[in-house]
């Protein structure tokens, strides 16, 4: 049982938020995902961020690209199936014009997901990122979360290139009592 003397353990979404703030990523545009819910809940109630929902991931990426060109750093939150809607926009806008748009993808369809559609589309994610030549890193450990997010954001801006952060169930499902891969 935690007492006032017990050091508070940072949760994964808190580590992500710390990396976003450390790099002044103030715009967070998202298409919802249940795994991302603690992150979305924390961001949408934090005045530091400008945050809102979009109808579609392509639209969100367009908004973040426009903002990135105009001095406001932004990130798109989505799940694996949402990423699968993005290859054309990534190829013809963010990659072609060298715009440091940031993506954060909740990895669905693996490590026990019950939805076959998620499982199939999941297999396309990394090959697509590789084909686009996009920097991407998977965060699977809490003690690496801030480092990976922080360094990926910094490199994206230093090299003027889009980048993707993939949140593994090893990170997001760990410690969730009775956790069942959700929708």
């Amino acid at each position, binding site marked *: 049982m935690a007492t006032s003397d017990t050091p508070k353990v940072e949760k994964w979404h808190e580590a992500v938020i710390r990396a976003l703030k450390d790099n002044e990523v103030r715009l967070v545009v998202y298409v919802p995902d249940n795994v991302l819910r603690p992150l979305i809940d924390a961001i949408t109630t934090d005045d530091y961020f400008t945050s809102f929902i979009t109808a579609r991931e392509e639209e969100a990426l*367009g908004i973040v690209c*426009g903002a990135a060109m105009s*001095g406001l750093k932004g990130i798109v939150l989505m799940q694996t199936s949402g990423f699968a809607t993005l290859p054309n926009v990534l190829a013809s806008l963010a990659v072609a014009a060298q715009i440091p748009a940031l993506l954060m993808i909740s990895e669905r369809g693996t490590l026990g997901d019950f939805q076959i559609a998620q499982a199939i589309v999941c297999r396309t994610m990394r090959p697509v990122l590789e084909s686009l030549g996009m920097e991407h890193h998977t965060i699977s450990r809490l003690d690496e979360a801030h480092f990976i997010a922080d360094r990926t954001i910094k490199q994206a801006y230093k090299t003027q290139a889009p980048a993707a952060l993939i949140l593994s169930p090893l990170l997001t499902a760990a410690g969730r009592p009775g956790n069942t891969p959700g929708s």
Partner: protein
Amino acid sequence: MANDAPFKHNSKMMNRLDLTTRLVGKLKNDEAVIGGIGNSNFDLWNAGPRAQNFYMLGSMGLAAPIAFGVALAQPQRRVFALEGDGSLLMQLGCLATIANVAPKNLTIIVWDNAMYQITGSQKTASAGKADFVEIARGAGLAQSAWANDEADFERLIDATLAGDGPWFIAARIDGSTPKGQTPREPVAIKDNFMRGIAIKPA
């Protein structure tokens, strides 16, 4: 090419380059303009290169979301999105997003010639029953209007430059083909735009 599609409004059929030139002529404060894929950005180019223009070469349907992102980042700068009818139909959800966030400095203009002109003039849904101003209003963009003629278009642009948005303007246009095309240089286009809106040193 004549556009004889039945329209549910009485606006005059106008010309995209003429209207784009009229718009650009009114921009005295380094307003940003995002030209959508194809003829929308070609005629923005033909109206005269500006450092504050972003010519979108791919990503069909994203002129309005990109302009929205620019508007969020630079709330003191007025921002225009120029989009074709086929492009806007690809991304109608963005109208609802923009209506809910309600950026005061954003105007979306749709050039409606009721066809996918650049791919062979196949008809769009606006050649049938779709009406963009009704769609925009339904999405929550209350300040939405068809431009009835060139003078009305100019009046609407003046209103967007004087008051709070978001605004949505639809213009019925003919099938004229752009006389020139934007150079396909996406990195140069981005860098010029970022210099034009003071993000990179001039």
